[in-house]
């Protein structure tokens, strides 16, 4: 066995080890979270924890109001982000002249790189007073500005660049011949976009939305800065709430209280499982969509 052969074997084995490390890491996180949440699960059953109210540690750990607020915030954020991002992506990929596209793309990339704490700070300085003074009174509600709606808008802006850049990529990957065929049988540009480009890139759009969902669902810092932090069922969009992820920053202080620390680990476990399930769903849907809309 010569030196090169030996080096090849060692290198390959090293690569295998780091690859398996990812795999091990995945299970290690999972089991550590389960292990950590055992003590709160002994305190109450999982069904009780997830569907009861209120969240009032150290006595009651009902996650229902927090889950409702999380669904509201994430849902509204996506409701705002999806149409705007899709429209922008279509414009960038199909309509914009080359030069405009070259100017816009770097801006989107920069927006994607802005740290979440900066989003949070900007929302706190700009959006909170705006909602407090103008938007909430406009709907006839009183609000401090620290509310579900503010958090949702912040998240929507954070999700824009993810959905846009992924959608632009999958729009540009649609073969030119497909578009030309549609245009040559008399379809207008918009019809072509709607019926050809959208369908051909449906799997791509889907995975972009799922990724955006993941980001919105798990965002911790920016949301905890603007959502208000009252763990009760929100009465309206302009009342404060608390999301699953925004419970967690206090873990550092609460670790000394075993039961409460354990409850927060349970929350982390819930986040982990939801992200896992959505990724699984995404892969299954993608496979189906690829079969249905293959070209």
């Amino acid at each position: 066995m010569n030196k090169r052969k030996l080096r090849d074997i060692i290198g390959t084995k090293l690569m295998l080890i780091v690859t398996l490390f990812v795999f091990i890491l995945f299970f290690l996180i999972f089991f550590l979270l389960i292990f950590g949440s055992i003590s709160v699960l002994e305190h109450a059953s999982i069904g009780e924890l997830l569907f009861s109210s209120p969240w009032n540690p150290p006595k009651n750990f009902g996650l229902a109001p927090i889950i409702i607020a999380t669904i509201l915030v994430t849902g509204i954020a996506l409701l705002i982000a999806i149409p705007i991002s899709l429209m922008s992506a279509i414009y960038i990929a199909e309509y914009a002249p080359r030069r405009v596209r070259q100017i816009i793309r770097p801006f989107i990339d920069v927006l994607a790189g802005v740290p979440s704490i900066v989003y949070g700070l900007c929302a706190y300085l700009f959006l909170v007073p705006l909602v407090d003074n103008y938007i909430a009174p406009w709907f006839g509600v009183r609000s401090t500005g620290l509310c579900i709606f503010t958090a949702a808008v912040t998240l929507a802006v954070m999700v824009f660049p993810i959905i846009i850049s992924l959608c632009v990529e999958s729009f540009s990957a649609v073969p030119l011949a497909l578009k030309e065929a549609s245009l040559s049988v008399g379809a207008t540009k918009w019809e072509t976009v709607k019926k050809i480009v959208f369908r051909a890139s449906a799997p791509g759009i889907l995975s972009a939305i799922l990724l955006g969902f993941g980001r919105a669902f798990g965002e911790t810092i920016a949301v905890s800065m603007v959502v208000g932090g009252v763990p009760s069922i929100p009465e309206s969009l302009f009342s404060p709430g608390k999301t699953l992820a925004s419970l967690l920053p206090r873990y550092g202080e609460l670790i000394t209280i075993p039961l409460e620390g354990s409850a927060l680990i349970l929350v982390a476990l819930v986040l982990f499982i939801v992200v896992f399930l959505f990724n699984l769903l995404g892969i299954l849907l993608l496979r189906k969509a690829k079969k249905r809309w293959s070209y």
Partner: protein
Amino acid sequence: MIISVCIVLGSLIIIFGIVTFNGASYISIEMVTQTPNPNDALRGGILNSIIGSMLLALPATGLAFLIGLGIALYLQKDFTPSWFSGFIRFTLDVLWGIPSIVYGIFCFTIMLYFGLGGSILAGIFALTLLEIPIITRYIDEAIKMVPKGLKEGAYSLGSTKFETSMKVIRKQAFPGILSGILLGLGRGIGDTASILFTTKATNRIPTSLLDSTDTLPTTIYHSYQLPTGQPKAYAAAFILLVIVLCISILSRILSKKFTKHVIK
């Protein structure tokens, strides 16, 4: 459509406007060259946070790059059957989606188990785990783009799989690898949640790996609501944004520069 584009670009401009408007006026030589004054919260600077951020993000990115390169090279068809690489890619996607605070909790728990508590080491550990999926997926995409003929050329000259990976594929995919690293660095330097309690907070410049430290994001998070802390928080946000912007521009320039050396 143009309205949506305007909304997106407008939000970016608003973010930059707010941070610059609030932060730029607090930037002074004192702010970037001194540690916080323990007696007067309004005096002193945030040098310890800047150094802390660098001490965490740079080693973490280096580690994540080494691990990520290994994984991405191993995911090629030459090494693994496709069912296994598909499985690993799925695992990486899930790891990418996990909120960063979960990594923070994970690392903090492990460190407590070893009796270490919050330290720079724990922070580097958390950031590395956070960056691995990002960097790996980027390198993976870049490696997928390497033309098959190039690999076959290397093999036919008698080089082993490992030599081909390290000498041919790595060089060909270099622009993609570089932008992956810089993206990971940008993500790592701006992430708050994973290092919020893994590094603890302190006013001093850290001297050892087991010291606790402040970072730019945690400085913002701890002091944006206190009237006396706001100047520092705004200044930190401004510096952070400038760093992220520089990384983004650097990534563009470098990948353009290195694309020249890539065989088309």
